[in-house]
């Protein structure tokens, strides 16, 4: 690991590296991350493939052969990319913060759609209604999309409803499941295996491959979970299916 300018840059194998902007989840760190992404995407180095933001890091993917043939010989391709990346991180302009787009996510909490809701309530000595209220009463900043297409990672969840990941990930979690893992909350866009504690399910579609960008939620958006009942859930799910047919 190399430390300069309070930056941590470390290799992720021989074709990617990770730039860490801090250890915390904060809006300030998020702005540094977005700043960096904007700087590198608007003026990419030769061999740059893509940059992937997370809460406090950006993973920079590159083609080592292109880098090798594009820049004067250095000790290693990693060091060449390291030098370039350091420049983006220290010489970028100000990230222009746009007004957050609020995305409402309807959720049917508990029951068979939220099998871990009781566990989270019990663990945190709350009633299930309180867990639902705490989870849905604030807006969440979307720091990153990851794990699966359109899966939003949001920050700012209330500590009172924290819970660790499952020791053994479930083999299958249904699409639309809303979960908690540590201090994070999120939504599974597809049926998939996963280790999050599941508290509810949304009828909304998160992955929209025919659109560009192909996801409902973008980094920088604010999410608002809206509790709905089973009837409303079925109505919205039914409406969605009708849309698909037209």
């Amino acid at each position, binding site marked *: 690991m190399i430390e300069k300018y309070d930056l941590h840059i470390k290799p992720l*194998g*021989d*074709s990617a590296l990770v730039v860490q902007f801090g250890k915390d989840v904060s809006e300030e760190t998020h702005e540094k991350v977005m700043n960096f992404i904007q700087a590198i995407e608007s003026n990419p180095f030769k061999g740059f493939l893509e940059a992937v*933001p997370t809460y406090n890091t950006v993973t920079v993917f590159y083609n080592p052969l292109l880098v090798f043939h594009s820049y004067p010989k250095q000790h290693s391709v990693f060091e060449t990319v390291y030098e370039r990346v350091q420049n983006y991180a220290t010489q970028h302009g100000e990230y222009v913060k746009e007004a957050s787009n609020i995305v409402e996510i309807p959720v049917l909490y508990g029951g068979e759609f939220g099998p871990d809701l009781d566990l989270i309530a019990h663990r945190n000595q709350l009633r299930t209604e309180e867990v639902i209220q705490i989870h849905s009463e604030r807006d969440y900043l979307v720091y990153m999309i*990851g*794990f*699966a297409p359109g899966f939003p990672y949001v920050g700012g969840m209330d500590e009172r409803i924290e819970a660790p990941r499952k020791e053994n990930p479930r083999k299958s979690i249904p699409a639309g499941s809303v979960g908690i893992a540590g201090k994070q909350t999120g939504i599974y866009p597809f*049926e998939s295996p996963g280790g999050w504690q599941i508290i509810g399910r949304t009828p909304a579609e998160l992955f929209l*491959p025919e659109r560009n960008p192909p996801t409902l939620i973008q980094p920088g958006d604010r999410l608002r979970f809206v509790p709905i009942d089973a009837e409303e859930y079925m109505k919205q799910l039914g409406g969605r299916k009708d849309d698909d047919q037209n």
Partner: protein
Amino acid sequence: MTIKIKHPGVQATIQDFGRIGAQKYGIVVSGAMDKMSLRIGNILVHNVEHEAGIEVMFYGTTFECTEDLLIAITGGDLQPEMDGNAVPMWRPIFMKEGSTLTFKGPKSGLLAYVAIAGGIDVPEEIGSKSTFSKARIGGYKGRALQTGDELAVGLLSDTQDKVMQSLQKLHTHPTWYVNATKVFAGKKSEKIRVLKGSEYELFSEKSQTAFTTGTYTLTPQADRMGYTFSGDALRLSTWEELLSEGVTYGTIQVPASGKPIVLMAERQTTGGYPRIGQVISADLPKLAQLQPNSQVTFEIVSIEEAEKELFRLEDFIEELKLGIYLKTTTGGMTQ
């Protein structure tokens, strides 16, 4: 030209080099598990190197062609047969209209690739033809191949047409072939070289020793997303919940079960489990080709060595391209 799937076998999917550029939306890269083998196959049939081919896993995949094809079969030796006769791998093959190709099962390795001159004519979705079944995009209708599927093949270039004609006139398969042991040897036990992962130092000393000196066995929990290994359990000195971070092909994550999971081609874009290691790019083909119950040891190398190995493989490919070009275009097909 058309390929008719008569039986999908265990799993057959259309794969190219994967989706690059949309990981920030969580779009999984996917693509061929053993890109080197697909790449060599494409070179053998004069396709662009990243053209999509068919990735055959394990056994049973069977298809018929309704027009003459120029193909190459590379990757693991899944004992391919054409109309009941063994068909050699790692060389261009003329597949006559009405012929049937099938895979009996692994003699070595796990994944075979069928590269087809002209490429497979399916649309690119989010920049790639690779099948990503979970999101139902890419490949044939966004899913693995099924009985009755018909795949169109793209137009052949003049060179491809000439190569196919000269093979047809031979009435036999070429005797020369690509010696791919530099890519992988299809052994039951392999040494896999890794870089230290981001959280390597957080693991207990005992676990670090186990990881670098112990033997790990590939469990049946192995698919295009990840390979789970069993062996001495790997533990952090003190358990920590980590923030999710970017991961890539070959990232070795360790969930609380202590069993290392190596992320493969269809991995997620980010992960939250501690990473003990990262398989070097040059060793990804032999990792991908491991059969369940194969044994591996992990050896830590430096980033410089990882890069050197990658460039060595690249030199091998460059030599190969020249050799194959000469063999297939200057009348040296049979030598």
